């Protein structure tokens, strides 16, 4: 428990972690509210209620696969900060030295870090995703939906989105821990979530792409994934969980066997 408390303190006193949390809390509701007000304005002018793939129902929720960048960055920072070198001239050390002299049981350290991440990204998702839905419906005003309608369409998908954020952050954490640097994972995961989804492109090339962790995991919440023959929400979630467990196991194996 001490180790978990220490890891919480460690992560929450890192400016980059606070930026990631702030981004998640601000960006998703902010962008969603903006889109909702655009849709509301269009509807007021007599336009269609669907803009592209965004409707009055899923406005806000469509940002789940983008705003996951926040939890992903948290996972990367949690692992990468251990291996960041200090100023070369004044302090060439890395935090992993301090972490492992304080907590030499490496399995314990890994479990503590993973627990912190599960709690933080889980709470972030459980707060930000419903708050965004509420905010967009408030902005839509008379064009919005009743809670019954929303629960019917989104309902379990909100829980799926929470699971997706938690698992994505753990995946990013495990990959960064093995790589011992956050730079490459940061570029890959952020680009994959925001600009070009490499895994989505792969669904065009091979049906096997449906087993990629993010493609499979997206089925837990996406009402309209733009590809054919995808897994169902539960099998998709299980496939993503298996990827996460596997990569965490690799990270544990590597961490307990290599020199710090």
């Amino acid at each position: 428990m001490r180790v978990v408390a220490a890891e919480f303190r460690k992560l929450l006193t890192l400016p980059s972690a606070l930026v990631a949390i702030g981004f998640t809390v601000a960006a998703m509701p902010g962008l969603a509210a903006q889109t909702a007000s655009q849709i509301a304005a269009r509807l007021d002018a007599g336009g269609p209620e669907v803009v592209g793939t965004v409707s009055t129902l899923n406005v806000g929720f469509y940002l789940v696969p983008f705003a996951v960048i926040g939890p992903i960055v948290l996972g990367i920072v949690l692992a990468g900060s251990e291996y960041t070198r200090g100023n070369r001239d004044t302090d060439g050390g890395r935090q992993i030295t301090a972490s492992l002299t304080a907590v030499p049981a490496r399995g314990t350290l890994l479990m503590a870090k993973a627990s912190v991440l599960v709690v933080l990204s889980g709470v972030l998702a459980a707060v930000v995703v419903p708050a965004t839905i509420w905010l967009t419906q408030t902005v839509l005003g008379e064009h919005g939906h009743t809670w019954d309608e929303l629960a019917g369409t989104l309902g379990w998908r909100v829980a799926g989105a929470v699971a997706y954020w938690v698992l994505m952050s753990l995946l990013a954490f495990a990959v960064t821990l093995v790589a011992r640097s956050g730079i490459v994972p940061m570029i890959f995961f952020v680009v994959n979530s925001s600009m070009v989804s490499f895994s989505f492109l792969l669904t065009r090339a091979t049906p096997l792409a449906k087993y990629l962790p993010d493609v499979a995991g997206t089925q837990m919440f996406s009402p309209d994934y733009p590809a054919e023959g995808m897994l169902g929400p539960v099998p998709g979630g299980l496939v993503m969980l298996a990827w996460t467990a596997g990569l965490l196991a690799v990270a544990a194996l590597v961490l307990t066997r290599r020199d710090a």
Partner: protein
Amino acid sequence: MRRPARDGHPGPVIEFIGLTKRHGRKLAVDDVSFTVCPGRVTGFLGPNGAGKSSTLRILLGLDFADAGTALVGGRPYREIRNPLRTVGSLLDGSGAHRSRSARAHLTWLACSNGIPRSRVGEVLDVVGLADVAGRRVSTYSLGMGRRLGLAAALLGEPEVLVLDEPVNGLDPVGIRWIRGFLRAYAAEGRTVLLSSHLMGETAETADDLVVINAGRIVTRGSVQEVVGGHASLEESFFALTEGLSR
């Protein structure tokens, strides 16, 4: 912590037994064995790249030995519960993330080992960083980073101090201060092992010396014994190592 030997004198606190470590094809530590006793400052002396840091990293459970063991109080470091309360250590750098403040760094360390929060302020005072404790570590000079590392080592009021090149980057006042500090620490019956490549400085601070070169222990004993008939420790060191490296 101190294990009484049969004759009633305290036994060794740190033991290296046949320690061997390879980095790739290079033998960084070659069958190193020595002990460190309480109540004395032991200097671990050798040129850069001689294997000092590798030896200390294995002692602290950071790196794995290819052969042999290193024990603190008869146990491997990894088996010590809340190790910061038994062994304080300082390795390369302060170990603090550069965007964290010194106070935040020491606070999570204290938290992880169940050390009272009040110790954070105390050690910051001891090393003279209290005024800058809220500043990011990236703004620190080399000397301030070393002081922060030392503060972290002292946090758990440990019986054993293991310090790798502690005077690196300290100004003459800092060096004089740390010398006095370590001597007083050992005088309380605690154990101090410090590595250095600075022979004159180490001769001033240490009671016992262990000299390492190219991964092998070349000599050990009290400072007087190691200096022997030579004019200085430096003379003695080169006499000991030059023959070996040819």
